[in-house]
């Protein structure tokens, strides 16, 4: 009897387990991190914990190479083949929401209480996406460089003014110790340009588009402040402070670490490599105040729900699960990005108080400004990139910015104002 009972018990248990498994509704998810082993490992842990921790949903993930991810999503949207949960680059979110690829994320405000505002994707008054991390840019230099050049160390409360910043570049150039005073990273093309350089424009008082209406770039990208920015931008290259658009990517990766650049405008994701390269006295300075306040870019990858998802409540449950501080900290420790909450930051090695990269959390919370929250941003960003490259290469500033404004406005008009 005993073996029979055991057998029956096992059968009943396995039937119940199978029933529970069958009751779980599958939610498909796409992610941009294929090829990044650490990122995949953290994400898989989050998914496994979620799948095991409740009986309603089971998430399955498909990872894509980042460089082709957006194209794959757009193609899938055309073919009606989107997954339930999507990974979305922050500035692209409004475009996908406007195009109908996304639906609002039914997540509670409590779940995102205390999150960096730049990690929350809002469009048309609704939350469409939430990120587990953000990124920030700082002005890398060495303490020894500051000391040798006799420069004041700028702080969040008292960043360098434009005059102080230019004086620092001039001092570095005059020292003859460096190939260039400033590495802006012009070797990195694409989204780096609007992400890293539009804050300079905004710090002058201009912008890529007019954020009061989002229906034109007129008066923003070709304003007096923007023209002043353009002249300043061009002077950085013409006066030999920074390498031009033909910068070798290898120099971008290693130039500062090898001591060939005095300052480098770079993101927190590169900080680990700098520390590993033995730059022990590296300091991460806040953005200079070029007249309209110190500003850096914001907005990284976030999770959202596709319009084809039949179970947005399941997707929201997964996102809420993923937003736990322990996972934010795990991602941060794994890939070096800034955790979305201060509590999570305290759980990390680098962003806790006194951590080597702690300043980046403060930069993100104090200086960051998201890129224009409009569906037209994806086009405007490319126009902005080309305009800045042309100006760096000597094009007339006013003509170039006027042409960029015309191109952006034509796109906005062709898309009936993108719903603004």
């Amino acid at each position, binding site marked *: 009897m005993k073996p029979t009972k055991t057998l029956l018990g096992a059968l009943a248990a396995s039937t119940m387990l199978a029933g529970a498994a069958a009751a779980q509704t599958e939610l498909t998810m796409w992610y941009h991190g294929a090829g990044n082993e650490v990122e995949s490992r953290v994400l898989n842990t989050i998914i496994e914990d979620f799948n095991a921790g409740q009986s309603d949903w089971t998430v399955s993930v498909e990872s894509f*190479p*980042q*460089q082709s991810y957006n*194209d*794959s999503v757009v193609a*899938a949207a*055309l073919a009606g*083949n989107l997954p339930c949960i999507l990974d979305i680059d922050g500035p692209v979110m409004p475009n996908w929401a406007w195009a109908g690829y996304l639906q609002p994320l039914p997540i509670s405000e409590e779940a995102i209480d205390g999150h960096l505002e730049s990690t929350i994707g809002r469009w048309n008054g609704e939350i469409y996406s939430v990120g587990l991390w953000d990124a920030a840019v700082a002005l890398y230099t060495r303490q020894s460089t500051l000391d040798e050049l006799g420069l004041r160390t700028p702080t969040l409360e008292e960043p360098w003014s434009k005059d102080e910043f230019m004086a620092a570049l001039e001092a570095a150039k005059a020292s003859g110790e460096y190939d260039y005073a400033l590495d802006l990273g012009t070797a990195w093309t694409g989204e780096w340009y609007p992400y890293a350089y539009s804050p300079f424009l905004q710090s002058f008082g201009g912008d890529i588009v007019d954020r009061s209406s989002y229906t034109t770039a007129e008066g923003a990208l070709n304003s007096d402040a923007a023209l002043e920015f353009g002249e300043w931008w061009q002077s950085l290259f013409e006066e030999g402070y920074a390498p031009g658009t033909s910068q070798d990517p290898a120099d971008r990766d290693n130039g500062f670490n090898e001591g060939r650049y005095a300052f480098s405008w770079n993101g927190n994701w*590169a900080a680990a490599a700098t520390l590993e390269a033995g730059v022990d006295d590296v300091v991460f300075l806040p953005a200079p105040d070029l007249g309209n306040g110190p500003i850096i870019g914001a907005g990284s990858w976030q999770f959202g729900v596709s319009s084809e998802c039949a179970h947005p409540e399941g997707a929201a449950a997964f996102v809420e699960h993923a937003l736990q501080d322990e996972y934010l900290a795990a991602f941060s420790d794994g890939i070096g990005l800034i955790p979305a909450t201060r509590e999570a930051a305290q759980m990390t090695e680098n962003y806790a108080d006194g951590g080597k990269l702690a300043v980046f959390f403060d930069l993100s919370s104090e200086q960051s400004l998201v890129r224009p929250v409009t569906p037209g941003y994806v086009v405007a960003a490319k126009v902005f990139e080309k305009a800045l490259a042309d100006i760096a290469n000597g094009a007339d500033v006013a003509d170039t910015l006027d042409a960029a404004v015309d191109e952006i406005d034509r796109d906005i008009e062709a898309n009936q104002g993108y719903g603004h």
Partner: protein
Amino acid sequence: MATVTSDNRGLRLAARYLSLVLVSLIFLFPLVFMVVSSLKPDHQLLADTSSIRAFLPVGDISLDNYVNAFERAPIGRFMLNSVFVTVVTVTASIALCSLAAFSFVFLEWTGRNVLLSVIVATLIIPFETIAVPLLLFVSKLPWIGLEGLEIGWLNTYRVQIIPWMVDALTVFLFVQFFKDLPRELIEAARVEGASWMLIYRKIVMPLSGPVIATAAILKSLVMYNNQYLWPLIVVQDEAHRPVMVGLGYFFQLQIAWGEVMAYLTLISVPVIAFYLVLQRAFISSIASTGVKG
């Protein structure tokens, strides 16, 4: 005088060989750089690019990049996918395109010249212009498989194979080659009562080795090396991805160039092996068809 002439001839020969060696080195250098770089750590790889060391296996040499590349991406799966898609597509392409060309050249039917002109004219249409309509089309196509009727071809091998099985260039190559075959052979076979299919199988195709080799190599290069946009938009699952889409796995924020070179070296092996196997037929086909790859 005879000695002087002989010396001059020797010098000329040496100069000719020297120039040939120099030209061949220009073509070999990228391959040598790729293989050598795949054995170096990134910092050394980047430092060596400004000197002759870039082409020499010197310094800190190891197979670490290969180990890391295999950890980063399922390279075996990607290569298997690409080889499978390439072999099936090339085989089908040769069969179907040669049949079409046979019909255009040897069979009498109304409108064949117009249709051939239309097909050849499609050569000027870039694939990018039809990619989206084709995507919409294949995403709605039915298929009867082991699990019954399915709608949509996305995330399959067939969506990477069937749209590429017939192309204008391959049809054109076969048409040009078939036009030069002796008509007497075909007419004699017809007089003897051979069917058109028999003539195709027993006479025309056995004589078409050079053009088959040419078509196979050109098509293989397209299918193996250039398949990026199409699989990118029709294949979302990793299990069906080809090697070119897999290359994206290595372009993270900090690009691991050594691993990129290791990956490129690995995926180049089937192409080089295929070319070496068919090179004799390919070279003879250049002479007979006047087509270069």
